[in-house]
């Protein structure tokens, strides 16, 4: 290990350096605190052995500078001192020393104290590495949770769009067939062949086509409008183009999330009852708030059996927007309740849930200065209650 040695007495310095090198350390020696500080700033030392009394910069001052230095990695500092009075130990510890060795130093004592310091530096180093790896893994998982909800949204949207597209396509095929028949009859009329024209009219059932034409056009246009609405809704829901906080209507956000979940609601035979009271605009990150609502609504729908009821209520209370999502589904087991917001906690089979939906939601609401409450009874259902202040600045920061 690289060791920085600060000692103004040349005899002690030479002896210390000789021993440290024998124990396999790479030693850089400084004759006073000032030189030690310059070497520390320029080098990469995690273990420092320093004398107390030195000209220019003394031991405690050197340690204070090392501690104030915003460098990654922990620096272990051993102070050499001729003193052993208790108040000096306190002063040294307060400056940031980790350990003391009295002078003239005992070789074995110094060796084991250096080894203890080395171990702490190594532990700190591996801990920092593990923390870094965990942060990276967590960031990747939060991203995968986002992709998982995006996948669900995409499935819902695809289903919703497929339906109108199918009958618009069908209507166009019918229109083309009937228009061809109509044009054939028209051509016969132009040629003065009235009998043939009448026959073609009869054969193509043009009277029926004519009667239904306005309705067919209306239905087709309605289908196209539906597709346009779904796409608009999706854009609002995802807020793909917004990274900043902006004012949003939470009732509209809930409507939007429910719209996207519609096919899942229908497929499961769940009834959704909404009771929205007027809410003031909330300064929030709309895309993230939508992610929270979507997660809570999906959970509620999944908790319900066929014919279940999901009630979604909003109100303004004590300066906060309150959103309640209540289901009459299976409820949450008491032993699971304390772990609900824990990252990676899921009761779903492996591979079906990331266990991050509620933990990510909790983080988002906390970042908005709000909170999430849960009430649940096994067999009777669960209520999630989200409270969001109108502006996060009024609560935090």
């Amino acid at each position, binding site marked *: 290990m690289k060791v920085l040695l600060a000692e103004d*007495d*040349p*005899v*002690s310095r*030479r*002896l210390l350096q000789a021993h440290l090198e*024998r124990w396999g350390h790479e030693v850089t020696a400084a004759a006073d605190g000032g030189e030690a500080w310059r070497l520390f700033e320029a080098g990469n030392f995690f273990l420092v052995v320093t004398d107390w009394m030195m000209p220019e910069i003394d031991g405690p001052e050197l340690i204070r500078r090392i501690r104030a230095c915003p460098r990654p990695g922990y620096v272990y500092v051993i102070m050499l001192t*001729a003193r052993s009075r208790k108040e000096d130990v306190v002063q040294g510890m307060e400056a940031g020393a980790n350990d003391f060795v009295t002078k003239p130093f005992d*070789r074995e004592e110094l060796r084991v104290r250096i080894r203890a310091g080395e171990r702490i530096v190594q532990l700190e180093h591996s801990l920092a590495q593990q923390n870094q790896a965990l942060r990276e893994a967590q960031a990747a998982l939060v991203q995968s949770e986002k992709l998982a909800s995006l996948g669900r949204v995409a499935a819902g949207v695809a289903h919703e769009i497929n339906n109108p597209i199918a009958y618009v396509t069908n209507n166009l095929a019918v229109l083309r067939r009937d228009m061809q028949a109509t044009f054939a009859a028209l051509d016969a009329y132009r040629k003065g062949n009235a009998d043939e024209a009448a026959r073609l009219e009869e054969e193509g059932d043009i009277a029926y086509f004519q009667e239904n034409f306005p309705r067919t056009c209306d239905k087709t246009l309605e289908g196209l409008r539906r597709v346009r609405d779904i796409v608009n809704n999706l854009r609002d829901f995802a807020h793909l183009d917004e990274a900043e906080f902006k004012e949003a209507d939470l009732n509209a956000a809930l409507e939007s999330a429910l719209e996207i979940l519609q096919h899942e609601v229908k497929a499961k035979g769940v009834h959704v009852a909404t009771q929205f009271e007027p809410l003031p605009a909330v300064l929030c990150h709309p895309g993230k708030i939508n992610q929270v609502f979507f997660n809570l609504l999906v959970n509620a729908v999944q908790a319900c059996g066929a014919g279940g009821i999901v009630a979604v209520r909003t109100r303004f209370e004590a300066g906060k927007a309150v959103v309640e999502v209540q289901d009459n589904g299976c409820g949450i087991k008491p032993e699971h309740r304390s772990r609900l917001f824990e990252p990676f906690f899921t009761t779903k089979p492996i591979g079906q849930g990331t266990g991050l939906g509620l933990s990510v939601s909790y983080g988002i609401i906390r970042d908005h200065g709000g909170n999430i409450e849960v009430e649940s009874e096994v067999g009777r259902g669960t209520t999630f209650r989200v409270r969001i202040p109108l502006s996060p600045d009024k609560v935090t920061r």
Partner: protein
Amino acid sequence: MDEELNRADLLDRVEGDRDLLKEIVEVFRDTYPGLLAEVKQTVDRRDAPALVRSAHTLKGVVANFGARAAHTAALRLETQARAGDLAQVEETYADLAAAVQRLDAALTRLLADGGGP
């Protein structure tokens, strides 16, 4: 003998390494005349804070050799200066200078013996 130099202690301190011993004796000889001169100057000036520092440094140097007499004199000088009691510093300095000279001589004998304690 032990008053000037604790041979056993010193040889243990260098782990029996004669080369390292010779090296630190050389460092000592390069260093102590300057340190003694500094102590003398601070004594002459009756500069108590500077005397605390100079005596402390010399005390640390001689402690490496287990030189009890020199260590005791340096400690007494440091203590007197710290207390601001400068009445006897001239005498204490004389004791210290003599003890350091005896340490130097004892080191010469130790290196010449070439053997153990």
